[in-house]
């Protein structure tokens, strides 16, 4: 289990991390969310010793993370980087060896990952001769080649085409199923909602929400209600309080309501007004939870962890 404990990191006058804590369990895909500059990259850099926190700790399996532990981690930095003029196969096996594999094992693993990504015939090509999408695949293979126990990926989905996105999520899912800890940052919230079990939301250096996506949704006091009553133009709502109209489209209205709302009464009122064609009651989407979490003026650090 990856534990981020009370991390604080300042760069001059800027506080990049402010007492941030969360955990990430192996076997679960953890989406690490936050606006630009919230501290996601800094957190990842602290895990890999690329930034030294002013306070706090990063721990793996109960022990503070050291160089030895990092050998079994895989990292994909936000700014992709490999040697442009180095052969793809050599490159993968080079990084595998840095993670402690023997030269022979490194070559074998490099070969099998290239095969997995359909790049076996490009092993002797220079990286810069590959297409953008294939370079991204090599970058991912670099993070995976030594069979890490923890994968930390900074924006792995950015710049990928739909095909690339599906390969990426497939690989991440497979790794998590194999018991690997997987943490990745992303701005594509719908994608995160689809593939992740857990999320950590960070804002201005503080963790403002963390936990299972379903739990966070349930815990949220708001619900979405979408009602369509034929031929009313939504006028039947006029007698009702305690809601916010999110959208109005002819007979269809989208409402934001509190969890405690009397659904039965609402449905009855709608029914009385006309033919109910749609009545759906749902927790908010992740993107809404996110907006709520990061725009709160005084973030109540809901560090529910898992």
């Amino acid at each position, binding site marked *: 289990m990856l534990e981020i404990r009370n991390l604080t990191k300042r760069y001059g006058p800027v506080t990049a991390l402010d007492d941030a804590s969360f955990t990430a369990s192996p076997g679960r895909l953890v989406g690490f969310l936050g606006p630009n500059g919230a501290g996601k990259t800094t957190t990842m850099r602290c895990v890999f*010793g690329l930034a030294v926190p002013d306070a706090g700790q990063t721990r793996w399996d109960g022990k503070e993370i050291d*160089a030895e532990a*990092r050998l079994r981690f895989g990292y994909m*930095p936000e*700014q992709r980087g*490999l*040697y442009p003029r180095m052969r793809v196969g*050599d490159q993968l096996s*080079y990084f595998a060896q840095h993670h402690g594999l023997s030269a022979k094992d490194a070559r074998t693993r490099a070969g099998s990952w290239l095969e997995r990504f359909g790049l076996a015939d490009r092993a002797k090509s220079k990286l810069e001769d590959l297409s953008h999408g294939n370079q991204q695949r090599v970058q991912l293979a670099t993070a995976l080649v030594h069979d890490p126990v923890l994968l930390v990926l900074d924006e792995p989905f950015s710049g990928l085409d739909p095909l690339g996105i599906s390969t990426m999520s497939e690989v991440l899912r497979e790794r998590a199923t194999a018991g690997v800890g997987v943490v990745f940052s992303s701005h594509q919230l719908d994608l995160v909602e689809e593939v992740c079990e857990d999320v950590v939301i960070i804002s201005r250096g503080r963790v403002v929400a963390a936990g299972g996506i379903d739990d966070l949704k349930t815990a949220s006091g708001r619900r979405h209600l979408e009602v369509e009553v034929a031929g009313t133009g939504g006028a039947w709502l006029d007698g009702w309080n305690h809601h916010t109209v999110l959208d109005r489209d002819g007979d269809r209205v989208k409402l934001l309501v509190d969890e405690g709302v009397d659904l039965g009464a609402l449905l009855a009122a709608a029914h009385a007004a006309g033919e109910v064609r749609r009545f759906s009651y749902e927790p908010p989407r992740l993107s809404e939870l996110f907006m709520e979490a990061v725009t709160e003026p005084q973030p109540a650090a809901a560090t529910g962890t898992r």
Partner: protein
Amino acid sequence: MNRVRAVRLVAMREIVERGRSKGYVASLLFTVFLLVAGFVLPSVFLGNPEATRLALIGEPPPGLEPALLLSAAAYDTELELSSVPDRATADTTLRDKTIDAALDVPADLSGPGELIVLEDASATLQGIVSQTVIALRAGANALPPAITALEPPSAEDITAIIFANAGIILMFIGIFSYGSWVLTGVVEEKQSRVVEVILATVRPRDLLMGKVLGIGLLALAQLTVLVLAGIAFAQLSGRLTLPPTTAGAVIQLLGWFILGFAFYSTAMGFLGALASRTEEASNASMPVTMVATLAYILSIVFVTQEPDGILARVMTFLPPSAPMVVPLRAALGAIEPWETAVSVVLMLVAIWVLFGVGARVYSGAVLQMGGRIRLRDAWRASR
């Protein structure tokens, strides 16, 4: 064991990737070609451009003068003949360099006679004189005239001077071209952001050390090939006789190259980390370039003139100039063993300190992007 392994991996990558590059092989071949051309071509294509001034001592045998001129023409060389009354006058005029050589052949051709020069006789002159005298004395023993040098330079002196000059040039070029590989290598890793992937498992100082080591070994290999090729071709073209001290001189040169390279490339490596793009790299390394150039110029201008002067002595103990000054002074035979010893120790200490400082600056700077990073900020940014 992990750190040693990491350094070795980095060094091996540099050697394989750069050694495989066309640039390395091409530059090696080109430099060998230049060196060979420098030694061989002049003796093949160029005759002696200036007339050789030859004085005949006493009464020359009849027909010697026209025969000399004739065979000089065959050698495509101009001979300027004069005469001096006796051997003593010949010696004096040789010493004040108004003539290049003097020839003393008995008027009755009873012996092959003697060719007298100040330092050494050119192969062309020897050929002309020998051929003429042998022809004139046809029938007698076909012996060429004996050659006497008034101030014969020892073979060691010649080699020493060639080594001193060639060595310092190779040293300077080597430190610069390979030092700039370290420089651009550091900046390219930073610019391509691959450094972040590497540093997730490798300590910054190990990465820097591996890079300096790998490129240094390539440079040493190239320098060794050059020196050996130079010696081999000089031997083949007969322009140089190797004294027994040659091996020592080569080892001294290579040893100082290692020290000089370690010193300068470490400096270039960590200064390179302050730049964010390759375009800024040469700017960042400017201080090092200036110091090295100054040391080089002072060495060739002043130290060669006065190898045991005060400037030479001071520069012996300054690490930036020692790699150029010490082998130069040693080649000229103007350095005490204790001076070399102290200089080596100071050099090793300086490399150690520079590497400590450099590794810290490097760690602080290599992950910061955006424009030039100030030295002080880089120092503070790292632990």
